[in-house]
């Protein structure tokens, strides 16, 4: 169990004995982990190992069967999503969920409208359109290009993923959970998004990334956690984790990568 960063203060996120059972199938069982502030935790595991359910549990989209989630020492187990966001946790969806009928930048109006943003902005909303366009530029939409004004339904996947990222960033969160942000993106697109995440990290944001793209993930992750059948089978630094025979068998198959 090496590789822990020993700190005295409370971790940003603490998950204890988290369990979720769906119609007889245990999706997440007895999950335990701590996430110190400013860390980037990578979560990997085969399909159906409970990664997305874990995200849904933390963000309140699914209520846990048992267990406890603490954020900054405050218990948030079973809170509805909007309250969890209010505490400073935001997420992206694996299957993007934009408002297809709205122009790309208008998509960001909705998160910018949230009470959290209002509180952080000192009670003033200001010109949301301008903020939205700035955010889009931050995630790689070209400034003043037509693409920001296009209907989200007409955007290619790469832009939709960026939009999804921008939507979670708009909430000014302390913890961002990225659910398979890179899935369905080409290498070039992934390469252009990685710096955005690195920049978030240098700004002191805590990030959980769920990924299949190990190469990119290992480059930026501080720690990696491996799930299989709803259980944590390994946790630690990337290199150490990948040495574990359990992980090799469960995840990479015989060949490895």
């Amino acid at each position, binding site marked *: 169990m090496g590789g822990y960063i020993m700190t005295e203060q409370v971790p940003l996120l603490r998950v204890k004995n988290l369990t979720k059972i769906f119609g007889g199938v245990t999706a997440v069982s007895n999950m335990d982990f701590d996430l110190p502030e400013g860390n980037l935790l990578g979560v990997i595991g085969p399909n*159906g190992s409970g990664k997305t359910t874990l995200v849904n549990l933390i963000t309140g989209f699914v209520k846990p069967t048992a267990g406890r989630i603490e954020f900054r020492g405050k218990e948030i187990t079973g809170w509805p999503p909007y309250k969890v966001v209010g505490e400073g946790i935001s997420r992206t969806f694996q299957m993007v969920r934009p408002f297809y009928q709205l122009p790309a930048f208008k998509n960001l109006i909705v998160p910018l409208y949230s009470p959290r943003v209002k509180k952080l902005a000192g009670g003033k909303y200001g010109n949301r359109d301008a903020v939205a366009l700035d955010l889009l530029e931050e995630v790689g939409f070209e400034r003043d290009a037509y693409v920001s004004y296009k209907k989200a339904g007409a955007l290619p996947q790469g832009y939709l993923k960026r939009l999804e990222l921008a939507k979670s960033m708009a909430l000014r969160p302390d913890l961002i959970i990225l659910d398979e942000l890179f*899935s369905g993106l080409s290498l*070039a697109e992934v390469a252009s998004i990685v710096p955005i995440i690195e920049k978030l990290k240098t700004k002191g944001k805590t990030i959980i990334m769920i990924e*299949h793209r190990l190469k990119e993930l290992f480059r930026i992750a501080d720690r990696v956690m491996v799930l299989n059948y709803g259980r944590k089978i390994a946790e630690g630094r990337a290199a150490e984790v990948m040495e574990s025979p359990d992980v090799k068998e469960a*995840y990479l198959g015989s060949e490895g990568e």
Partner: protein
Amino acid sequence: MLEVQNLMVFFENALALNDFGMEVREGQVVGVIGSNSAGKTTLMNTLSGLIIDMRIKEKRRGGERITVYGKVLFKGEDITKTRPSERVKKGIVLCRERHPIFPESDVSQNLQMAGYLRKRSEIRETVKEVFDLFPALIPLKSRKAGFMSGGEQQMLAVGMALVARPQLLLLDEPLLGLSPMMQHLLVDAIKGLKAKSGITVVISEQFARPVLPMIDFGYIIENGMLTLTGTGSELMDNPEVKAAYFGI
């Protein structure tokens, strides 16, 4: 076996496929490689005839106008305007992207449904073959498909396409969202399929790495246009392909 000539597809004013042409010989595995929204799914929908159905539905709804120009020839016969169900009868079966399964039915029912146009004895036979190909599905026989993991669903989806007894199997992004182990498993399965039954496969992918080694011929498509063609190894050695799809 399959020939596509000057295919152009418009979604209202947006051009999804521009002057696209390709050719598939019997027994080949052909790859269509391209990044997101390059037109791969549109191509697959056009080949399987789904686009005809989409056009009718959009028209009824007064939505986007879909226009298709060009020709699709299957065994020398023009099938550009043939309905999807007729195409399945002729042996063109598409496995759509993102795990196309029936979530509320169990695995064996899913396989039965896929064999709608085939005889019962044929279904029984192919279902057995599918279980041979994907032994992981056997213990899941009576599990509701919606409760299975993405990888299991994708196996099932490919299995369902096989039950429809294709001569030409179209796989639309079969590796999307799968873990490396699942990807290996599927690629192996497709290779085995080709070796065993000599089926013709068109596979569309955005990840060139796992696909290129197994294809006989590949088309690289960008923004709806054909940019490169060549055999699998030719493409793998091509510096541009390397730069774009291998990140080297």
